């Protein structure tokens, strides 16, 4: 089997490595496919559905982050339908919790906010849920604000896969899903948290933040996570 394959992305012929996902292949060529749950270096989960693309000959939409490239694959990353669906998904996220961007620690540095701007979401047509979502301020250094959580599980994965602590997981189901620390403990009471802060740095929104950072101050350094994973990979 050839190591390299040729695929078409939006009509353009590109080369990709076998084993790469569509998202990796596209990103390597500088192409943009929106995503929120994906973070390079962590196991892709295909949960946010923003990276859905159309693949010729396949009836359903496929997540670019988990679908491996195949030789001769023709991928469409932009279409009227995909644009509409992506906007709707973003709107659903905004409607789900209380994203008060204006006063958020991650204002102007938030991936959700940036995607909304980029994809032209100017309002949320769905009624807001305005749920009661709490905060966990117990940790000395960090804060969990459920109001801003989009359940992308990057923190869950980075903690389990990179740090090896598995402090975070998702409890409940459906609309009642929420991030929990271990078996629903206060963060400060965690027995496995190493205080490494990788979860904070991988979080795309203001859900996980450093304590004491005021509005607009929380800039996440997701690329450090990716670099760390790559460095580990080299070591291994």
């Amino acid at each position, binding site marked *: 089997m050839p190591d390299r394959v040729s695929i078409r992305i939006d009509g353009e012929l590109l080369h990709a490595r076998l084993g790469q996902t569509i998202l990796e292949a596209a990103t390597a060529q500088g192409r943009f496919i929106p995503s929120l749950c994906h973070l390079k270096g962590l196991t892709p989960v295909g949960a946010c559905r923003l990276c859905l693309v159309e693949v010729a000959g396949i009836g359903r939409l496929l997540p670019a982050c988990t679908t491996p490239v195949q030789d001769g694959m023709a991928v469409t990353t932009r279409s009227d339908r995909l644009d509409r669906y992506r906007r709707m998904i973003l709107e659903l996220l905004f409607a789900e919790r209380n994203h008060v961007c204006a006063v*958020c620690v991650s204002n*102007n540095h938030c991936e959700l906010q940036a995607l*909304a*701007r980029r994809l032209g979401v100017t309002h949320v047509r769905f009624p807001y849920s305005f749920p009661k979502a709490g905060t966990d301020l117990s940790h000395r250094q960090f804060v969990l604000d459920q109001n801003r959580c989009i359940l992308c599980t990057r923190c869950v994965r980075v903690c389990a896969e990179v740090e090896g602590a598995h402090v975070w997981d998702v409890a409940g189901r459906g609309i009642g899903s929420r991030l929990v620390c271990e078996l629903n403990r206060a963060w400060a009471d965690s027995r496995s948290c190493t205080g490494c802060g990788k979860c904070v740095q991988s979080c795309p929104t203001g859900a996980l933040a450093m304590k004491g950072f005021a509005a607009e101050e929380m800039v996440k350094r997701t690329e450090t996570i990716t670099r760390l994973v790559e460095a580990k990979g080299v070591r291994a």
Partner: protein
Amino acid sequence: MSRARIATVWLDGCSGCHMSLLDLDEALIGLAPKIELVFGPLVDAQEFPEGVDVTFVEGAVSSHDDLRLAQTVRARSRFVVALGDCAVTANVPSMRNQIPPKKLLERIYVDGVNVNHRVPADGVPALLKQASPLHEVIRVDLHVPGCPPPAAAIGYVISELLAGRRPDLAGKVKFG
């Protein structure tokens, strides 16, 4: 050419969006001959007039007064713009939405005072259960998010509307 009849309305917001409108600065002087400001915090008009071309609404819908005014605005305006995050998303005013209004008011007017421990009820509008974005109570023609939206975006919207075009805001505005 007749002047465009423009109104500005402010519901449950901080006036920041109106201030951002004023931040057009000298551009306001250029705008003055093209528009007639028929209602708003900057002008003396008691009733929201009929036949308004464009109404900019700042603020979330939070009380019964807000709701009524929003409905009047819709009935009497050709084009309604939700201006700023409070009108678009309910923003900071919505932070009260998890709390029953009664509790909220009692905290302020019963627990929070030294004299006359009681919630005002005479001549003041009742609070709605939740503060809502404008489009959840009336049809909105254009949304301009931002806290506040930048003056440039507001200027762009006004000039496009005056030119009879529908402004395309993709990439120009954001929440927050």
